[in-house]
C-alpha cells in the first residue's frame, strides 16, 4: 500500500511536470513540424544566416503578411524579398507535402516564438490564403 502511494505520488509529480512543460509550449505540434521542415535553414532560433536566409525572429515580413506566409511555406519563394530593411535574393523550396493544418501549426509556432508575439491565425484564413495562391 505504502509503495503504491509513493509510486502514485511520483507519477503525479511527473504528470505535473509534463503538464507544465506543455503549458510552456502551447504549439508542440507546430514546434515538431518546424524542426522537421524548417529548422535546417531557419535555425533553432529563427535567426537570419547572414544575407543568405532571412530571419523569422523579429521579422517585419511576418507582421505585414499574416496568413499569406502560408503560400511561401507551400510553394516556396524565389527572387528578392526585403526583411527588416535587408534584401535577400535566394530560393526557398516549397513544402507541398504539408497540408493546411500543418501549415497553420507551423505559422502559429513561428508567430509566437523567439519573442514574436503576433497572435494566432486560424485554419480558415490559412485555407483562404492557400486558395488564393493555388498553383
Amino acid at each position, binding site marked *: 500500500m505504502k509503495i*503504491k502511494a509513493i*509510486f*502514485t505520488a511520483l*507519477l*503525479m509529480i*511527473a*504528470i505535473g511536470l*509534463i*503538464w507544465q*512543460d*506543455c503549458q510552456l*509550449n502551447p504549439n*508542440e*505540434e507546430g514546434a*515538431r513540424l518546424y*524542426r*522537421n521542415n524548417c529548422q*535546417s*535553414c531557419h*535555425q533553432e532560433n529563427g535567426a537570419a*544566416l*547572414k*544575407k*543568405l*536566409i532571412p530571419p523569422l525572429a523579429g521579422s517585419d515580413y511576418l507582421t505585414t503578411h499574416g496568413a499569406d506566409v502560408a503560400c511561401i511555406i507551400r510553394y516556396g519563394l524565389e527572387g528578392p524579398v526585403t526583411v527588416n530593411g535587408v534584401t*535577400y*535574393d*535566394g*530560393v*526557398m*523550396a516549397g513544402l507541398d507535402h504539408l497540408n493546411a493544418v500543418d501549415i497553420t501549426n507551423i505559422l502559429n509556432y513561428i508567430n509566437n516564438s523567439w519573442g514574436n508575439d503576433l497572435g494566432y491565425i486560424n485554419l480558415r484564413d490559412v485555407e483562404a490564403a492557400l486558395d488564393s495562391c493555388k498553383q
Partner: protein
Amino acid sequence: MNWNWILALGMGLLLTACGGNVDNGDAIIIHERAADGGLRIIKDSLSDFAFVNQEGDSVTNASLAGKMYVTDFFFTRCPSICPKMSQQMLRIHDKYADRDDIVLLSHSIDTRGDSIPVLKKYAEKLEVTADRWHFVTGDHDLIYQMAEEYMIAANVDENAPGGYEHSGIFVLVDGQGRIRGYCNGTDEEAVTAFMNDIDLLMNED
C-alpha cells in the same frame, strides 16, 4: 479506487504527453585521439587536385600546401543540410578569422548549377571572402573523386532534395595534406569539439 487503473492511465499520459520529440539522431562524431593525446593521421596523402574558386582563381593541393584546411561538399541550392553546414562553417571561419595558416574549402557537387558567379554570390551572401573561404567548382568527376578521397559520401540522386545526396561531414587536413580529423558539420557540439582539434593541430610542431 483501483490503483492499477490509475497507474495505467498515468503511464498512458506520460507516453502520449506533448507528442514525440523527434530529434535528428544521425549525429556521428568521429573523434579519436592518438596515444599521445594528439590528432591521429587518418590518411597520409591525397591525390593532386585543381579546382577554381569563386574569384576564378585556381585552388590546388600545391596552392594550399603549408596551410591546414577544413573542407566539405555542398551545393548552393541545397534545401536540406547545407544551410546548417554553412552556419557551422561560419563559426570556424569567425574563430580563425585572423589566422593565415588555415582556410576553408567548400566543394560544390552541383557542377552544372554552381558556376563561378553563383559561387561568388553565395560567398557574398555569407559575407566571406576567398582569402579565408574557397568555394570551388571544377571537373565533375574530379570533384566526386575527391569526395571519395576525403571519404565523404556524395552522389547525384534525382530523388534527393535538390537532386544531390551528400553527407554533412567536415574534414580537417593538415599543412602536409594529411587527413587529421572529421566531424558532423550539422551538429553544433561536434563542431565545437572539432575546433578543439583544430587548436591541437595548430599547436603541433
